[in-house]
């Protein structure tokens, strides 16, 4: 543990960042993994603060018995907690009004066993979203289901893809009004990436936009106004590829969607191109590793920005886009903040796609700089892989400087908080052929720590200046989501099972609690029926935090075993008792 810098421990915002709290869910509840449309994961609850967070103790736990990485965010709606497991994607409702928080109902969706062997990076599920009395989530075998929140009965089920092709679904749906947005996974399987909008009431597909292919397939029309020249032209989703290769070119949509209600635009990123061997697909490979802004109603693209053109290292562009209004060089800008896997943090004008800030937040050597004029990173030719040539010390590796694990923002500090990595790799590319049912991959990787020796790091970032404010170094990977609270405490977990609460201003670690397994979940907070503030986090290592189990640096001998326990914390460990039922919020 080490603090790299200390921020001024005052009480003012350090950046002047503001954001929209829409849709304005009740402060004591948590309806969707990202909490709000802007994807801030910020709670206005402040019972737990920097003065008492060290007294957090376990109030109760819940084990679901499944294997695999536990990445989902627990939700709370109407005194009921909702928890979804990794494959087989079982959904539990826990009754918070009763002593012992018993299971109110269990929904077993019965996905195909085949799906388990088709998911590239463990059979994870990133969460459920609550809308209109329903819980909507994706099954690993490419179905989206809606479940009645009161009864646990299936309301609708929509088949979105064919699991036999290697396409899976792991992302948490994102709902706005009567629409729910879902996307696919399978960037290592040669899947064809897409995002789709479904009708919340019926599950009917309203539109689908692919990440490669013709302008019609990508839903690019006359409203498309990208900021940079390289994104202007007809059918770039075909012409930036060798003939026909776009069709298995991936660009899957496997993480987060955010939404600006004033602009009526959704924002999301697309995955790496397939195959992962770049010499087999000369060209920029649009629209992979790209951030899209789309009209929420029609799905038509408004702008796009490719973070890693001709992605050679599996960097993806999928990470979350947090919508903040920021003073940049004296002018308030509607911005989005994006920590790309390529290790650059971007502050982008979300109305136009113009890059306002681009600077590395994690150790990297694949680029030598960033051209603000063209919006293109400057690639370090020494780190370009070619088939059958062993390339040493490329940073970051395929997992990136940060993976899917979502950051959080606080309007009180104006900072953004993220769990990031400190990794490099040795890489040998092997040419691959597309064989349906098998990976379309080709990267032979050995990962190891970047300079410093730590694998993980938790940081506070100033999105207005593009600079790191402070950070906490971690020996093991930090691949958990982040929770920011009005008590000025931010929460995250480590791959070796430490759950930490940190002072949002100074970076001082105030709470460290060792849980049963490594933590790659997303912490959330809520008020119980007893008006007490609780913090919830799943423990259960898996996902990309342990893939390629041979690499000692990532999974040293004696690494914590898997697990499947949800932990609920309160001050002093007090839990809900039945006599508290009568109170209302």
């Amino acid at each position, binding site marked *: *543990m080490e603090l790299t810098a200390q921020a001024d421990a005052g009480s003012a915002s350090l950046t002047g960042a503001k954001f929209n709290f829409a849709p304005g869910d009740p402060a004591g509840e948590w309806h969707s993994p990202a909490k709000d449309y802007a994807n801030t994961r910020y709670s206005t609850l402040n019972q737990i603060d920097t003065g008492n967070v060290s007294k957090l103790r376990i109030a109760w736990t819940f084990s679901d018995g499944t294997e695999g990485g536990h990445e989902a965010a627990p939700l709370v709606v109407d005194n009921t907690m909702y928890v979804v497991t990794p494959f087989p994607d079982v959904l539990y409702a826990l009754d918070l009004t009763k002593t012992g928080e018993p299971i109110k109902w269990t929904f077993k969706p019965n996905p195909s*066993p*085949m*799906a*388990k*062997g*088709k*998911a*590239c*990076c463990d059979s994870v599920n990133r969460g459920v979203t609550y809308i209109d009395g329903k819980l909507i989530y994706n099954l690993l075998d*490419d179905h989206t289901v809606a479940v009645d929140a009161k009864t646990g009965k299936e309301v609708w089920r929509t*088949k*979105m*893809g*064919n699991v036999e*092709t290697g*396409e899976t679904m792991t992302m948490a749906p994102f709902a706005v009004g009567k629409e729910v947005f879902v996307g696919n996974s399978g960037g*290592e399987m040669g899947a*064809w990436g897409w995002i789709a909008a479904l009708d919340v009431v019926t599950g009917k597909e309203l539109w*689908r936009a692919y990440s490669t292919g013709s302008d019609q397939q990508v839903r690019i029309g006359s409203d498309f106004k990208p900021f940079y020249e390289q994104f202007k032209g007809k059918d770039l989703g075909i012409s930036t590829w060798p003939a026909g290769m776009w*069709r*298995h070119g991936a660009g899957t949509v496997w993480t987060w969607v955010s939404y600006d209600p004033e602009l009526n635009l959704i924002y999301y990123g697309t995955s790496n191109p397939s195959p992962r061997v770049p010499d087999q697909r000369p060209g920029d490979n649009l629209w992979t590793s790209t951030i899209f802004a789309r009209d929420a109603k029609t799905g038509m693209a408004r702008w796009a920005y490719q973070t890693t053109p001709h992605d050679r290292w599996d960097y993806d562009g999928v990470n979350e886009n947090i919508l903040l209004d920021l003073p940049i060089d004296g002018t308030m800008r509607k911005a989005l903040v994006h920590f790309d896997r390529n290790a650059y943090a971007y502050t982008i004008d979300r109305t136009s796609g113009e890059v306002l800030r681009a600077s590395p937040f994690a150790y990297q050597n694949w680029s030598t700089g960033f051209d603000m004029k063209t919006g293109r990173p400057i690639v370090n030719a020494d780190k370009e892989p070619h088939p059958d040539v062993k390339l040493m010390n490329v940073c970051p590796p395929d997992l990136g400087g940060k993976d899917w694990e979502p950051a959080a923002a606080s309007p009180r500090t104006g900072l953004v908080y993220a769990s990031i990595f400190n990794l490099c790799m040795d890489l040998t590319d*092997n040419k*691959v*052929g*597309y*064989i*349906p*049912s*098998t*990976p*379309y*991959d*080709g990267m*032979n990787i050995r990962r190891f720590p970047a300079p410093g020796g730590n694998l993980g790091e938790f940081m506070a970032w100033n999105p207005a200046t593009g600079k790191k404010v402070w950070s906490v170094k*971690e*020996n*093991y990977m930090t691949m958990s989501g982040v929770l920011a609270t009005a008590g000025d405490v931010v929460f995250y977990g480590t791959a*070796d099972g*430490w759950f*930490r609460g940190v002072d949002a201003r100074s970076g001082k*670690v105030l709470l*460290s609690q060792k849980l049963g397994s490594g933590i790659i979940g997303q912490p959330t907070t809520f008020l119980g029926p007893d008006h007490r503030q609780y913090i919830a986090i799943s423990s259960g290592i898996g996902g990309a935090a342990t*893939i*390629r*189990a*041979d690499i000692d640096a990532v999974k*040293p*001998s*004696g*690494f*914590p075993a898997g697990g499947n326990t949800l932990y609920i914390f309160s001050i002093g460990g007090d839990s809900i008792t039945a006599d508290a039922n009568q109170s209302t919020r």
Partner: protein
Amino acid sequence: MKTSVGASWVMGITLGLLLTNACRHSEGGSATTPPVAGFPATTAITAAPLGQVAGASGNVQAFSITNPFEKNPQAIEQGKQLYIKMNCAGCHAYNGKGNMGPDLTDTYWRYGGLPVEIYKSIEEGRPQGMAAWGAALPPEDIWKLVAYIESFGGSVSAKDYEHARQGDQPGEQVAPEVAEQKP
């Protein structure tokens, strides 16, 4: 999925190419020393059940089938090339330690670690994602893949199957967790 027609068309073409490549691979390259007794008969392989034979105990003849390419360096090298070319490495990792698919270097074999059992898992596929390669690869190539997998050292030799089935193998010690200090 909207594109199922297009997808199956592409699949057909690709599988055709794959078969062509596989055959070319088997015919070309450096000659492998042919197995002395030829390949095990299909009927013999089929006779190896996935589970214990109900009502019976003791030896099942089919389990004694040995790999005609066992410890054959050329076959192991060709098996390695197939392992990469057929995208086995994408699931089981380049060093066989597993990722999407199971670890092939340890002693835990869900569908059996005997040569004939590994052969059958490759040939028939398995329900949790493992593709069936019997139609795409000739027996010779599957046995080469088995030889490469055997070279990882985790599989069970034909003469040891009874011990492996009954767990007569030593345990192993794993290093302690690396301690991290609390702040």
